[in-house]
C-alpha cells in the first residue's frame, strides 16, 4: 500500500513538472531557445545595464565592467559577492584542518627520506620562479586566463616544493595567518567602501575608474580584489600544507 501511494505520488509530481515546464515561456522547447537573449550574452557584451556598442581591445573606455577577461568580469565583478562566499568556503575548510591537526608546539614529521644537497639547493632556485609565476598570474587575472585562485594555488605549490625538498623547512606560520586575515578583511572593506562612497551604491560596487580595457591598470577594484584573493588562497593552502606535514612535539 505504501509503495503504491509512493508510485502514485511520483507519477502525479512528474506529470505536474512536465506540464508546467512545457507550457512555460522561460523554458522553450529543445533547440528553440534564443541564446542571444540570455544573461550570458549581456555579460559578454558588457550590456547588463546599458548597451556600449562595439568594444575594441585597448581603446574602449569606461565600460560597466572593465576586465578584458570575460571570466574575470563575471567572477570578480558581476558576481563578486559569490566569490566572497567561495573564499569563505576555503577559509572554513582551512580552519577545520587547523582545528583538527593544528596546535601550538609543532615540529616536522620525521620522514625516512632525507633530501640530498642537490635537491635542497635546486628547489630553492625553482621556488622563486614558481612563486613569480603565481604572482604574475594573480596580478594579470583581469587580462589573461588565470586569476587569484590559480595564482594562489601556484604560490602554495612553491611552498609545498620547499616543504618536500627540505625536511627542516617550516614557514613562519604566524605571518601567513596574519596575511590571510588582512587580505580577507580588506576584501570586505573594499566592498563596504563601494557601499559608502556611491549614493545608491551596492556592496562591492566598482568605485574606481574603469580605464581602457586591456591595460594593466584598468578595471577599477577588480585587479585589487583578485590580488587579495590570490594572497588569501596562497596563504590558506600553505597553512593546510604546514598542518599536514607537522605533528605535535612531545
Amino acid at each position, binding site marked *: 500500500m505504501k509503495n503504491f501511494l509512493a508510485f502514485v505520488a511520483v507519477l502525479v509530481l512528474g506529470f505536474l513538472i512536465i506540464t508546467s515546464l512545457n507550457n512555460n515561456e522561460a523554458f522553450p522547447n529543445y533547440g528553440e531557445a534564443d541564446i542571444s537573449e540570455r544573461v550570458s550574452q549581456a555579460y559578454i557584451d558588457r550590456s547588463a545595464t546599458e548597451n556600449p556598442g562595439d568594444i575594441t581591445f585597448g581603446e574602449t573606455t569606461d565600460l560597466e565592467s572593465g576586465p578584458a577577461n570575460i571570466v574575470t568580469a563575471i567572477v570578480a565583478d558581476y558576481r563578486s559577492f559569490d566569490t566572497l562566499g567561495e573564499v569563505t568556503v576555503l577559509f572554513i575548510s582551512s580552519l577545520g584542518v587547523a582545528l583538527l591537526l593544528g596546535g601550538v608546539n609543532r615540529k616536522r614529521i620525521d620522514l625516512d*627520506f632525507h*633530501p640530498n644537497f*642537490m*635537491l635542497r639547493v*635546486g*628547489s630553492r*632556485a*625553482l621556488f622563486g*620562479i614558481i612563486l613569480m609565476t603565481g604572482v604574475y598570474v594573480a596580478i594579470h587575472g583581469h587580462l589573461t586566463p588565470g586569476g587569484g585562485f590559480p595564482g594562489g594555488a601556484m604560490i602554495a605549490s612553491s611552498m609545498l616544493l620547499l616543504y618536500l625538498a627540505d625536511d627542516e623547512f617550516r614557514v613562519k606560520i604566524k605571518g601567513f595567518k596574519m596575511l590571510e586575515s588582512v587580505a580577507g578583511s580588506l576584501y570586505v572593506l573594499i566592498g563596504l567602501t563601494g557601499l559608502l562612497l556611491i549614493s545608491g551604491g551596492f556592496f562591492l560596487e566598482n568605485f574606481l575608474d574603469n580605464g581602457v580595457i586591456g591595460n594593466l591598470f584598468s578595471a577599477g577594484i577588480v585587479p585589487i580584489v583578485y590580488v587579495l584573493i590570490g594572497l588569501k588562497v596562497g596563504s590558506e593552502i600553505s597553512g593546510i600544507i604546514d598542518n599536514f606535514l607537522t605533528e605535535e612535539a612531545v
Partner: protein
Amino acid sequence: MEIFSYIFMTIGGLFYLLGGLGILRMPDTFNRIQAGTKATTLGAFSLLIGIGFNNPEWFPKLLLIIVFIALANPIGSSALAKATYRSSDLPENLVQDDLKDLFGGKDNVS
C-alpha cells in the same frame, strides 16, 4: 628568420619523438628516466628557441621557461631515480652500482 624558427622547432619535435620512443623501448626504469629526461630537455629547449625566433617579443618569458626546465628536469629525474633505487628491485643486469659503494646497501641511501 622564420626558416630558423621552423628548423629549431623540427629539431625539438624530433627529440620529443626520440624521447617517447626511448620510454617505450628501454628495458628498465632507470634507462627510461634517462631517455625521457635528456630527450625532452633538449627538445623543449629547441622548441622554445624556435618559438622565440618567430615571436622575438616573447623571448624573456621563453628564457625564463628554459631556465625553469633546465633546473627542474634534471633535479626531478634524479630524485625520481633515487626513489626508484630505494623502493624497487634493481635490474639483474646492473653492471655498476656506485650508490652501494658510497652508502653500503639500499636501505642506507638517503
